[in-house]
């Protein structure tokens, strides 16, 4: 197997806060690796360390065999990095931005046009428009084009879909999937749980640590608890009732319904249903369902939290 990024015992602290706390992971050639977690969980800090933009306090990072502290110049030749906030030149046009970034790498728009063709074709009608006047989705497409135009071996994307509408999000992900054909490895960070399922492998981040790192299917497969979807007319009353039944049962709102988590050999669902029936809150239905990544994340967080307590 061909390892592109190797992260070993990486720790990074700012003043007294620990942004990244002893993280290990490795990324394999040609995969899309997702760093999934909320704001401030250490995703951006890790990406910046891999991009050689900041130095770790301890631990080691190898990118395509290069050390991120000593050989940072070699790393910068082979990566494409897209920072979190939109940071192209707002007063340059779409085409001017792209030309500028191609020239930086001694390349031009034509050479690697096939890489960006799918998304840049959406932008081409606006190529004389200044980047600052594009919509959020368009800006992200342009930024992605600019970080791809030199055909990097490793693409680092920091929250490329934050604040982007669903249609542009779908386009961006389609494009990322296609890059695998060109042998480009991608590390992408996202706060959206539903995007985790689109990655080949993910690491779930919380408070600077990795809760779990695996493929989405494996993570869901490891979920051994019983998960019930609880539908009712009034989520608030049902939630209260379920909490009354058992103080330490894990139940939470999930979109339109509630999710109730029981231990894997807990057979108490009948008792619960019976109890709820007597609560006079109307019809409540229970359905055993497959967990999502978000359910897995919640359970992992819950277990970690109770470990700390």
């Amino acid at each position, binding site marked *: 197997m061909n390892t592109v990024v190797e992260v070993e015992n990486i720790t990074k602290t700012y003043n007294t806060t620990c942004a990244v706390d002893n993280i290990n992971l490795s990324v394999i050639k040609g995969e899309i690796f997702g760093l999934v977690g909320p704001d401030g969980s250490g995703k951006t800090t890790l990406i*910046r360390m891999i*991009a*050689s*933009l900041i*130095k770790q306090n301890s631990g080691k990072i190898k990118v395509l065999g290069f050390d991120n502290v000593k050989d940072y110049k070699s790393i*910068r030749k082979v990566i494409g990095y897209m920072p979190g906030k939109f*940071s192209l030149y707002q007063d340059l046009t779409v085409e001017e931005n792209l*030309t500028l970034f191609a020239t930086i790498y001694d390349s031009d728009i034509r050479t690697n046009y096939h890489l960006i063709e799918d998304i840049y074709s959406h932008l081409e009608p606006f190529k004389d428009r200044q980047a600052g006047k594009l919509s959020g989705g368009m800006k992200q497409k342009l930024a992605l084009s600019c970080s791809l135009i030199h055909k990097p071996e490793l693409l680092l994307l920091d929250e490329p879909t934050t604040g982007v509408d669903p249609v542009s999000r779908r386009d961006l992900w389609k494009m990322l999937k296609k890059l695998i054909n060109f042998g480009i490895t991608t590390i992408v960070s996202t706060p959206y749980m539903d995007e985790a399922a689109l990655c080949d492998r993910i690491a779930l981040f919380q408070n600077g640590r990795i809760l779990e790192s695996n493929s989405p299917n494996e993570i869901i497969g490891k979920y051994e608890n019983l998960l019930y979807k609880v539908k009712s007319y009034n989520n608030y009353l049902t939630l209260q009732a379920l909490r009354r039944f058992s103080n330490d049962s894990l139940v939470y709102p999930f979109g339109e319904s509630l999710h109730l988590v029981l231990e894997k050999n807990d057979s108490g669902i009948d008792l619960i249903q019976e109890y709820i029936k007597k609560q006079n809150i109307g019809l409540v239905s229970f359905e055993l369902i497959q967990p999502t990544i978000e359910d897995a994340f919640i359970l992992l967080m819950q277990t970690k939290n109770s470990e700390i307590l």
Partner: protein
Amino acid sequence: MKKFRVFVWKEFIHIWRDKRTLTILLSMPAILIILFGFAITNEINDAPIGIYDKSKDELTSKITSNIINSGYFKLEEIIKSDDEIIDVFKKGRIKMIIIYESDFESNLTKFNTANIQIISDATDPNVANTLVNYAKSLVNNFIMIEYNISPNFKIDVKMRYNTEMKGSFLFVPGLITILMMLIGAMMTALSLTREHEFGSMEYLLTSPLNSYMIIFAKLIPYLLIALFDIIVILILGTVVFGVIIQGSLLLLMFECLLFIIMSLSLGLLISTVSKSQQVALMISLMGLMLPTILLSDFIFPVSNMPQWLQFITNFIPARWFNTIIKSVMLKGAGIGNIINETLYICGFIVLFLGLSIFNFKERLD
């Protein structure tokens, strides 16, 4: 080289598309020179005065008309009684009152002495002083000629380099100094911190680009704008205000170029220590513009400052440049006369560039 060209091109686009800033940068020399030249001036022109003539004889009216005709004063008020004097001053229009004692002419012929009293509004002491001196010499001259009285001694004053005591000779060099600081240091600092603030620096840093290229590409457009502004000031100064460049134009431009490079390096240094445009602006304004204006010998003479403050002015590059530019422009000094000051400027360049390079980070932290 192609990369460098692209970067310079990009900087020009930034400047070109920001029309408001560009207009300000290019029109500033003209606006400032006109402001300083016409509005803000120490020269006396048509100062409003009052005359209180208790004598009303032929001589006093001759003296009065002589004073008024000099062009320095304008008769604004004829005062008729002692009570009016205070009122006239309180109204604030009148800067000075000339009072002739009664029987002025006959006193002068009989006793060979007569009194004129000059009362002036000294809320602005410099102006009051100048007005009084002008009036005194006008009266003395007139009496001397009229009565052919030759005084026992004669003071011969010569105003060298600026015979007509023109303010423009002072403010043209001063303006060049200030503008160079503004464009060189402030604009460069702002433009570099902007890259950090918008995050585009992150892109550039993670590329194989040589960071010095990013920086030097940024300096070129501002260098050109600064040169353009100098030329505008020099042309306006010579054509409109009659400043004559005594020394070598080539030397003058060379020294200006050195000073621009100094301010660009200073701007660079500011950008390496400021996290945001706001900080850069504060440092430039408070830390650069104020000392440049106050301590560079432009408005307040360094030689009148207390010793410790004079010592501090040594660290203000503008102070050395002010000496250089005055010497070359007004005194016709050659490089030999200003070699010390030039070396100081060169020293500042080395210092600021060195510190910037030392401070410049290839990373974010």
